[in-house]
């Protein structure tokens, strides 16, 4: 496979960060050269364990996800019956929990746990990059921070799904969808925490804000809390669960949130640049890929060049 300029840069940066030896570099270059040009064909021919093959999330991220989703769902299921107290379904919800007074206490307790999880997450995503910067291993493309390339990736990906491109874009460890989702969730969490705290500590917020803003801020927070909660719940239900549970090929679920690993074919399909880094950083993966290519007679194979594989009617 002949790498694109961007992919070449990613590989070179990774090799520099990992201080690879000349022999390793030769080995890496050889494996990359042996890969077929068509990434779709490559991803379909690798061997994958549904539980995951390659490292993706640390134990910290998995614990944070567990804490966040469990508190988020329980917060939604305790918060909605409080907001919609007069709805016909709210009464049994509250009654099961011991009445609305108890529901409120549970809701606030869960909020404290969720905020703790947020603090834990902020520490994690701060400490690791600081360590990487200190050791000159930091690559912003490997983080969740949105970059202009994400907009191009989004466009190209939509065109691929619309059958107007032959390849999905070469996306990094976090693709555009995950970045949108992450920042939407982060923004939503902040809104929920600030608005929730404005209900609990109205005096504090009134004292720190300019007097002209106080009333509108409080009203905005009262609007935001239920609206953001409902929006988040719908986004989770319609999009996140689609992406990790319901999308063809992801059903019944991706195990990454538990095992911390991603399947090889998924990595190649949606995070190809990260897969290249895996080839640099994990010698076993290089060996595994080479074995797969050899066993399936794909090494240096140009039969499946993308131009050859172009389907009829494609633009």
């Amino acid at each position, binding site marked *: 496979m002949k790498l694109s300029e961007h992919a070449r840069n990613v590989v070179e940066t990774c090799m520099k960060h990992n201080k690879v030896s000349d022999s390793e570099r030769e080995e890496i270059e050889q494996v990359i050269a042996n890969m077929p040009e068509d990434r779709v064909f490559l991803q*379909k021919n690798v061997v994958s364990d549904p539980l995951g093959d390659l490292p993706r999330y640390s134990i910290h991220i998995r614990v944070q996800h567990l804490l966040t989703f469990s508190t988020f769902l329980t917060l939604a299921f305790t918060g909605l019956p409080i907001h919609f107290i007069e709805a016909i379904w709210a009464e049994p919800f509250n009654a099961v929990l011991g009445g609305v007074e108890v529901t409120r206490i549970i809701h606030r307790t869960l909020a404290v746990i969720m905020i703790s999880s947020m603090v834990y997450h902020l520490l994690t995503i701060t400490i690791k990059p600081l360590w990487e910067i200190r050791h000159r291993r930091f690559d912003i493309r490997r983080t969740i921070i949105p970059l202009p390339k994400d907009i191009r990736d989004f466009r190209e990906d939509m065109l691929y799904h619309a059958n107007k491109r032959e390849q999905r874009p070469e996306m990094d460890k976090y693709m555009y969808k995950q970045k949108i989702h992450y920042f939407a969730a982060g923004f939503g969490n902040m809104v929920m925490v600030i608005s929730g705290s404005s*209900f609990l500590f109205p005096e504090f917020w009134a004292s720190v804000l300019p007097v002209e803003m106080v009333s509108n801020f409080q*009203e905005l927070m009262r609007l935001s809390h239920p609206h953001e909660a409902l929006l988040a719940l719908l986004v989770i239900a*319609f*999009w996140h669960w689609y992406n990790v549970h319901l999308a*063809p090929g992801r059903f019944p679920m991706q195990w990454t949130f538990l095992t911390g690993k991603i399947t090889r074919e998924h990595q190649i399909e949606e995070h190809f640049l990260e897969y290249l880094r895996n080839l640099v950083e994990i010698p076993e993966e290089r060996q595994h890929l080479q074995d797969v290519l050899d066993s399936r007679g794909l090494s240096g194979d140009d039969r499946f060049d993308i131009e050859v594989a172009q*389907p009829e009617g494609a633009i």
Partner: protein
Amino acid sequence: MMLKKETCRSRFILAASLVSGLFLTFFSVQVVAFEDDEGCLICHKYPMMARVTDEGVLRSYYVMPHVFERTVHRNVPCRDCHSYIKELPHKPVTQGVTCNKECHSIKNPATGKQFSHKMIYDAYIESTHGRKKIADGLDADKPYCINCHTNPLYNPGEGKPPKHIVDRCVVCHEKREFVERWYNHTSRRIREVKRSSKEIFELCSSCHENKEMLDRHVRQAQEEGRELGRKFPIAAKSYKESFHGKLTRLGFSKTASCLDCHARQKDYFKSVHEIRPSRDPESPTHESNKVETCQRCHTYADENYVALDPHPSSKQEDNVFKYYAEMIYNIVGVVVIAMLIGMSLVETIGRRRDGVSWRLFQGSSWRRKSPRGRDRLK
């Protein structure tokens, strides 16, 4: 055969009547009529004692002795309030009962003077709600004493004081009935007898949510160029939208109701009778008193805090900011969800075209034959 059936039915009715009679004898509430020394019940004991007014309203003059017996005014003879009655049968009544009269029969045990509600009446008449008993025009919309004070019944559940207390009291006070009543009177006041926040709001809403009444007052004030409170037309409705209103609806008793802000907490029971508009410097909701009023519950409330709107509204004419904020939230919500569903549909179509399908056990690596033509090698 027919006769036998009739006999059975008669026996059944007889038995049922006997059982019912016995039941009523043993379990019915004992009716004790109040002392009717003035003979008012000669006529007013009849349920049909009523007339239809010129306006076509049926007015009942029926007094239920067994009910009146249980009210807080049971010891007050009729003519202490209906003092215009001079003879029997009396002439048509042209003036109603006012609550500032002195009771000739009841003495204030603290002062030894005739008992009267005059003090509280005078406070009320000076308030924004003050009106004469017979009022017309906009004043007729205002509440008179009996709109709020409904001459409540004593709760039968609290009727009987503990025997050992009564036994002790009757040693000097002799009359067991007197002791029981006195006990009821005082013990009820020792207990919390204030209306709950929910009840207070319902009471105030009976007028402040009456659209016709509100419109009448707003229109009249505009015609006269008179100032009205900015929140006057939406007071009750906006309270329901407020945080306090929501908590009140949830049944929380420690939430501010109308009277917690609009009446002074010092001397509360008098103050609720002298509510004033917020432009009146004596009102707890006047600009100069707001901090102190809010601090009753919100200890750390400051000058900024009182800028919070206790009567918020989402209507464009009342709060433009909130109106557009809500509209934007709704639009954003719908657009975001529609876009995400659209993206998911596009991706599903694309992935299906790639030969990817839904399978329960093969994990994410299972693929079917792809319409794109790049399939896994066998």
